């Protein structure tokens, strides 16, 4: 009985425990303001983590996400400054940014499925390429002086809720529906479980895998745009090490690096667990060096809990 409860809600319980501890230690923790703040803080990486969940479910990995955030951020902000009416240049920068991310994913997918190169290598290469490109196009300088209105996208609120939080919620719900209710979602799990068996069951495994990297690329691009908007600038060094934060959230959320097992609901809890921890430690004025150590320990504990529940 106990194991059944842990099995279903293990991560949720861990999250609740964490929240209770911080609520006791800091009166400010359980205020609406602070909780919305947490959701805003995790939104950028959590959106990327959704794409990463798709990738990891197919037993792949995408290391290019952090660099994509940067390159899409600078490219979109440069386009935003083009000499068009604001709405037009906004549209152009959004479309081009997302298209760049999707394109990067399709390149990764092509190399992985056509030439049988491991996802790790392909996306590692893309990671360096895009990081380099971000510095090349900006000559290493941030893109400043953006139209005021642009910052509303990532910095504004709708009905009191931060816009990135709303976008994150939409992305999670959509992804959950796609994974659980559509054929595409089923195929993602099947390929991660046993790619050859999936192919022999008539699944176009190359196409599905490629689409998965395109999803990851486009969601990274979306995050890149949101981040640029929040900072109201395009920074070539933004998104550094995001790939690690994102992978941590996915794995803590119970998705297996070997593929075939996991969910975006888990990824949400994983992102929250880490986000709440960071927030709580901030409220308690724990220094950032110590924070890193604590976050690492909690990641280990969470994964341990996950192993233990599988027994």
């Amino acid at each position, binding site marked *: 009985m106990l194991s059944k409860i842990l099995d279903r809600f293990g991560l949720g319980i861990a999250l609740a425990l964490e929240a209770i501890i911080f609520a006791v230690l800091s009166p400010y923790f359980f205020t609406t303001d602070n909780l919305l703040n947490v959701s805003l803080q995790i939104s950028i990486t959590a959106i990327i983590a959704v794409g990463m969940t798709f990738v990891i479910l197919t037993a792949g990995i995408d290391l290019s996400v952090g660099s994509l955030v940067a390159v899409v951020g600078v490219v979109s902000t440069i386009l935003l400054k083009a000499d068009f009416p604001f709405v037009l240049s906004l549209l152009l920068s959004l479309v081009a940014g997302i298209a760049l991310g999707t394109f990067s994913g399709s390149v990764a997918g092509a190399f992985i499925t056509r030439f049988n190169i491991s996802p790790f290598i392909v996306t590692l290469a893309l990671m360096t390429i895009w990081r380099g490109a971000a510095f090349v196009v900006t000559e290493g300088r941030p893109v400043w002086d953006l139209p005021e209105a642009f910052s509303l996208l990532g910095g504004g609120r709708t009905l009191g809720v931060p816009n990135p939080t709303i976008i994150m919620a939409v992305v999670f719900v959509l992804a959950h529906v796609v994974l659980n209710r*559509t054929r595409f979602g089923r195929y993602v*799990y099947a390929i991660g*479980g046993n790619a050859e*068996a999936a*192919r022999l069951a008539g699944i176009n495994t190359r196409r599905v895998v490629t689409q998965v990297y395109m999803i990851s690329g486009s969601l990274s691009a979306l995050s890149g745009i949101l981040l640029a908007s929040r900072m109201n600038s395009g920074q070539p060094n933004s998104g550094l090490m995001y790939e690690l934060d994102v992978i941590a959230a996915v794995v803590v959320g119970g998705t297996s690096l070997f593929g*075939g097992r996991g969910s975006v609901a888990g990824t949400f809890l994983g992102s929250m667990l880490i986000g709440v921890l960071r927030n709580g430690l901030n409220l308690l004025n724990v220094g950032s060096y110590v924070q890193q150590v604590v976050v690492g320990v909690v990641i280990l504990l969470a994964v341990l809990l996950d192993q233990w529940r599988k027994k």
Partner: protein
Amino acid sequence: MLDPPRTMSLILEMQQMTKRYPGVLALDRVDFSLSAGEVHALAGENGAGKSTLMKILAGAIQKDGGEILLDGQRTKIDSPHSSLKNGIGMIYQDFKLVPELTVAENISLGNEPAHRGFIDFPQMQNTARSILEQLGENIDPSVTVKTLSVAQRQIVEIAKALSRKVRILALDEPTASLTEQEIQNLFGVIRKLKSDGVGIIYISHRLDELFEIADLITVLRDGTVVGTSSLHETNKAKLIQAMVGRSLEEEYPKIQLQRQNELLSVEDLNTPKLKDVSMTLYRGEILGLAGLVGAGRTELARAIFGADRVHSGTMWLLQKAFTPRSPKDAIAAGIGLLTEDRNLQGLILQMTLSENISLASLQRLTQGLFIDRTKEKAAAGEFMRKLQIKAPSAETVVDTLSGGNRQKVILGRWLMTKSKVLIFDEPTVGIDVGVKYEIYNLINQLAKDGVGIMVISSDLPELLGICDRIAVLCDGRMTGTLSRKEATQEKILRLATEFS
């Protein structure tokens, strides 16, 4: 059945063995014993608990209750390591080979010959070669296991167990994918071990085999012992009765059908393995494909299914040219292939039973954007009943199913596709007698509905029993086709060895 007197000394006693899984009592106070130099068979329906009992002995899983005595001494076996240390060897039903390692490396895995801490590779090769020779096989010890066929992997698995000095050897369905010749080689080895005083536990669903090799038989049903008897004192009918709880009048039900129009034809097909193969399949026909291991039966099936590249040749499906470039194309055109290797090429182990069954039919089960899960579950449930799949529910993860029940899940997947042509590569591997009969009936029914069926099987009596025609391959070439009336074991074997 009564307990026969045992004159020889008992080397193994398993008393009151109990094993519980969520939702099933896999073993319920099972007693089992073994003497030196004895072959003791274990039989029973799929999911009866045979493999579970052996896995406990091998230390692969832990028992929930009971005692294990070796030579009368209570012994704790809590890991594969301690089982090996006690001289127990195990050949698992679902192989435990490392695909990326070579044959020789697999055979000596965990037991590598070493010299001053360095692996002695020449010695390793020699050991492997000599054991494979004993088994009458010429498999190259230096190739990686992933390049081998299922039958060859089975041989390697057997060689691995034989490479260690064992007092007790358990074989869990070692012959499921082997042909007659290889089975005889294996039996030769078993007889030799037996005369050396090794105690052997032998699990198989091929009952004829048990009468040939075993001294004693214990029948399990639903995790309990039905009885133990000497093979001399029983017969096939009694065994079936004990296993499935009812009697079967005939082993191979067969209905005579009028042959209909041409469905699939293959002309001069060439692949790396096949040479100028031509054949025709008619609607409502059951065509058998016979041949020795490595004759190219699986390759022919995979070529028709678009799973492998084809060098040259033409195929016609209902008079229209047919060139599948992927399994997806073939399935869309109405062709299904049940692969011989259920674990590597068939099942998605971490998915549920119903997800596995529906995997090739999702197109039909999709409403707009979404999978109609109610319809999916209902359809999967139907096959679960028809094939008598033993599992707590359609939501059970297939990882936890017994070997035979896994096979039934794959079978269900292809029965669900409503294909025009169904190719079954070893469909009844590891399936118990009672359900085999049901499967033959299902195949008959499909033929009656106008489906063209090709069956590949290493079990010749099965082919003779259910097929309308039997095509024989030898060394990648088609050496002849026999009608049901003409076909005999001898004629098939002659065609199957025409070039050797």
